[in-house]
């Protein structure tokens, strides 16, 4: 049942220790900073986090990792110039890493939302990231078997929601939002704006409300903190 929630703290209050949490965003674009901060404040720990990266600088996901709340990262690109908190935990053997090619990450998340139990893809064939995985020759190519990534919770950012929970995004901040919303049991969205039902054109809705559970408005323009 869709809920509109007043604060990011209340929005993430139900996230339990040991959960798998998908976090939207690619770089700063589409990162739900305020929800991540609230998750940090909530004290939830032993988390498996699915995100394209493994945190940057001294904010958001990087702080969750620094505080030891993240047991495992599933991501495509953990190593960045400012990913020092992940780097430190990783080298100390204090965080598990499942490294996934970015397209496999996206497709595995999409598969979870779409009820696909697994699929074959050429990406990664013959590389160390496919070691130990089933392979098959299909459509003239060797392909690797990949499985869906499900999550308990998704934290994502959109531009606007209507009262039915329908979402639209802004530019490349869309990235993982729509597929994570579909892959998680419970999807929490921070939006810049909530509009009346009927204000969004039905042709242009990117995430239908069926994928959304909790919506919280966070003041500020979408790009403000990212810029």
């Amino acid at each position, binding site marked *: 049942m869709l809920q509109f929630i007043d604060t990011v703290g209340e929005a993430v209050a139900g996230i339990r220790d040991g959960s798998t949490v998908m976090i939207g965003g*690619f*770089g*700063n*674009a*589409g990162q739900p900073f305020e929800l991540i901060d609230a998750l940090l404040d909530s004290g939830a720990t032993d988390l498996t986090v699915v995100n394209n990266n493994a945190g940057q600088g001294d904010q958001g996901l990087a702080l969750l990792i620094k505080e030891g709340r993240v047991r495992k990262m599933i991501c*495509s*690109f*953990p*190593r*960045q110039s400012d*990913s020092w908190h*992940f*780097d430190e935990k*990783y*080298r100390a053997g204090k965080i598990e*890493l499942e*490294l*996934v*090619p*970015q*397209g*496999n*990450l*996206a*497709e595995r*998340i*999409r598969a979870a939302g779409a009820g696909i139990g697994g699929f074959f*893809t*050429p*990406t*990664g*064939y*013959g*590389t*160390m*990231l496919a070691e130990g995985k089933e392979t098959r020759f299909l459509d003239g190519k*060797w392909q690797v078997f990949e499985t869906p990534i499900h999550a308990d919770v998704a934290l994502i950012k959109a531009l606007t929601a209507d009262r039915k929970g329908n979402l639209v*995004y*802004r*530019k*490349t*901040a*869309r*990235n*993982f*939002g*729509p*597929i994570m919303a579909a892959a998680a049991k419970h999807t929490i969205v921070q939006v810049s704006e909530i509009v009346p039902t009927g204000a969004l054109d039905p042709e242009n809705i*990117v995430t239908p409300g069926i994928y959304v559970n909790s919506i919280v408005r966070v003041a500020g323009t*979408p*790009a*403000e*903190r*990212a*810029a």
Partner: protein
Amino acid sequence: MSTEISIQRSVKPLGKDELAALVARDIAPGSFVNLGIGQPTLVSNYLTEEQNITLHTENGMLGMGPEAVGEQIDGDLINAGKIPVTELPGASYFHHADSFAIMRGGHLDICVLGAFQVSATGDLANWHTGAPDAIPAVGGAMDLATGAKDVFVMMTLLTRDGTSKLVEACTYPLTGVGCVTRVYTDKAVFLIGPDGVTVRETFGITLEELQQLVPVPLKATSAVGV
């Protein structure tokens, strides 16, 4: 050896910008192209309006324009290297699964990537040095390598210690198997096909000299201007 003379196109090795300009010229009009992070990004500076090239960025956009400056900078509009960019008329946005479906489904005409090594059969190594203490990070490299119709590599031919990056078999961890079709280097352009490695042109070096640097049998192209 007339063939050899005919393929030497300059008296000096090419600089990065000259190489980028060469790659840009080789892209067919109307193509859909993804330029990898780093050196390949330079190619965009040399694409002409007449070429009508559409750039894809894997974080969810077709019709990407040049890097954003000043007032144009918008934190919600970045490329795969997380650099602020602009939007051209006719652009479109889509989510990550749809974006990678464009790459993985074979819809991009060309993707241009950097490389640590390329093998004589087109294997690509460009994501991981294999150093035991390195933190691995792959991003979209494997999807790009595997999905595009043509994969062009841009790199210097030699490492800093003078070893060829064009090799019989990659020693670095692979990004993709048999995926590279062309290699653009400062010293030569190589075409990789089922019958081996062909040198299309050389820069400041003869084919014989080139063969001494590269541990892979090289053939000169017979057709000029391929």
